[in-house]
């Protein structure tokens, strides 16, 4: 990324499209620097939702992703809470800082999803929550006197945890993803991947991908939103590798003289960030290091706009009657 103006390189280029060749350095490219400074000052919001039935390591994974205890683990139900009878939505916010950049991270947890005997419509509270956030944003936007910066509580990304059965997707998984893939970015991951050997993992991934295709579930990054060839080729590579088989851990162990995050079993230590052991590193790079902004943009430009158009059309019809 540009930290310093190129200066002379620009003025001697004659292939600028149509316009006049620059006779000296103007400094237009410092706008990138200005934007960076602004972003650093204001910081930005990121809202991530984790969905999956209990015991799949959702909280552990979020803690591992953001390398801090942002999600409270429920180590035992009997300790303070029973399994909730309906799906609850719990949103916890933290502010984390790295390299001068502040991020307000909100983790939305959904305890009780898929845990009952009868799980009909357990996606409804989640769908309602997502639409409520869009509604809040819409109201703020439509106001006459708007706030300078509308607080963004919309869910930018929903990580759906697939149980590592090794056979097929469950009915509940396909139902949930079908219904929510049009209102939020869904990233499916295979949880607790240390249950499966590498061959089992590959087979399972193939099967899951095929099933997702057959059911018409468009997970993030969606094919229809690829803007240009570069995007398409990058995203194609990612789509081939999804769903990522991840392992989460917040304990450190000593391996070959290095301290690594991992899980210690009687036959070896599973290293979380070792790409030979699991795909956590890939998920993290994809989610945070390359596509974080894209997630927000897709949510804002596409999902939110769809919701807004639907709402305004409803209102319009109401008035026209």
């Amino acid at each position, binding site marked *: 990324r540009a930290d310093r103006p190129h200066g002379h390189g620009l003025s001697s280029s004659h292939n600028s499209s149509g316009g006049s060749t620059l006779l000296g350095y103007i400094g237009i490219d410092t706008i990138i620097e200005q934007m960076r400074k602004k972003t650093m000052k204001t910081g930005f919001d990121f809202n991530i939702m984790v969905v999956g039935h209990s015991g799949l390591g959702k909280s552990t994974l979020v803690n591992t992703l953001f390398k801090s205890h942002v999600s409270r683990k429920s180590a035992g*139900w*009997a300790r303070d809470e029973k399994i909730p009878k309906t799906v609850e939505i719990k949103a916890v916010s933290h502010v984390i800082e790295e390299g001068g950049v502040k991020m307000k991270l909100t983790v939305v947890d959904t305890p009780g999803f898929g845990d009952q*005997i009868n799980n009909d419509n357990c996606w409804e509270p989640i769908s309602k929550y997502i639409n409520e956030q869009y509604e809040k944003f819409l109201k703020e936007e439509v106001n006459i006197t708007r706030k300078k910066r509308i607080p963004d509580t919309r869910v930018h990304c929903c990580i759906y945890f697939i149980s590592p059965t090794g056979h097929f997707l469950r*009915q509940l998984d396909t139902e949930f993803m079908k219904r929510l893939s049009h209102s939020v970015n869904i990233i499916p991951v295979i949880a607790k991947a240390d249950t499966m*050997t590498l061959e089992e993992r590959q087979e399972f991934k193939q099967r899951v991908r095929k099933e997702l295709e057959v059911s018409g579930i468009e997970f993030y990054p969606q094919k229809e939103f690829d803007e240009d060839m570069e995007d398409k080729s990058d995203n194609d590579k990612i789509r081939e590798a999804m769903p990522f088989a991840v392992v989460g851990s917040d304990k450190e162990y000593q391996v070959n003289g290095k301290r690594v995050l991992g899980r210690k079993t009687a036959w070896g230590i599973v290293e979380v960030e070792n790409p030979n052991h699991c795909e956590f590193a890939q998920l993290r790079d994809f989610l945070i290091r390359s596509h974080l902004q894209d997630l927000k943009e897709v949510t804002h430009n596409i999902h939110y706009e769809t919701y807004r158009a639907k709402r305004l059309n409803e209102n319009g019809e109401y008035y026209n009657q």
Partner: protein
Amino acid sequence: MIERPETAVPSIAQRNLEGYVGFANLPNQVYRKSVKRGFEFTLMVVGESGLGKSTLINSLFLTDLYSKDYPGPSQRIKKTVQVEQSKVLIKEGGVQLTLTIVDTPGFGDAVDNSNCWQPVINYIDSKCEDFLNAESRVNRRSMPDNRVHCCLYFIAPSGHGLKPLDIEFMKRLHDKVNVIPLIAKADTLTPEECQLFKKQIMKEIQEHKIKIYEFPDTEDDDDNKLIRKIKEKMPLAVVGSNVVIEVNGKKVRGRQYPWGVAEVENGEHCDFTVLRNMLIRTHMQDLKDVTNNVHYENYRSKKLAAVTCNGVDTSKTKGQLTKSPLAQMEEERREHVMKMKKMEAEMEQVFEMKVKEKKQKLKDSEAELERRHEQMKRNLEAQYKELEEKRRVFEEEKANWEAQQRILEQQKLDASKTMEKNKKKGKIF
């Protein structure tokens, strides 16, 4: 409810023998007879799909019950819970075992899993009923024992606790079959997580008063120590695999990960060996005995009590459950005959009454007819009289009229005569 029978307290005095009699050979005779007959064992596996049930069965019995030619339920998605049975004949050291594996594909896989335990309960009950019918038959030559001797329940290794589905299922089945809970895919958990998870599960099992299979105490001290060790490890955390991998020059069965090999038969890696020893090598006979003496007897007494309570006043039969069925049948027959007699007498009465009524009705209608007849006659006479009257009047009138006509005629004649006279006289003028 019948509880486990305790070892009988010997009340007969023991005598010492003065020579060798030879009945110490009895166990050998029993052994030889049973080896000739062969053994039967039915094992049921229940759990959500993907928990490694088929792999575990293959590992336990070292056969490919589900192979590429006969794909097991794991290769097919089920929409409803089915109960499938596969039989396999295993021979080892001259002993023959007919092993029946009952699988329940589709359990817990749907979105709405209410009553997914019902097909399982129906299956177990139907097998007990088959045995009951076979036992009650006149010809009991062959009594195949298809009752479910043991149910392995697979718990998903979430690390948290039991799911509501697990608790519901075990609560409903713990008094019908021996339930042994297992933690499936135990290589997901680290040793500490496994300990915590086991403790949590046992706590919840006690909380909900679920009666899982308990190992009987034996008189042998060594055995007791082993049993206590097994009890501490419950529920057993198992890993299944039939793939042979080479580790340190040894060939072991296990799962190959990039970070190591999880050995199936290594006691420190998982409790598979404990399960295998317990299930096959030490407690198979006890499982069958408990099924026969406790679960089957419970089923039988419940079923028979329900049958005898029908048709008889329930308040009378509260203390009569131990009556022999033959006496019960006699009583029933007598009651039936009495009922029939009563019904007959009643019907006779009703018949008599009806006959009387009919007679009365007939009499009434006869009287009625007579009366009408009289009345009609009188009417007729009255009419006749009237008519006579009228005729008389008419005759009178006729006579009058005729008389008048005659007079008129006469007058006319007279008038015409005088006219003639007058005419003649007139002409003279």
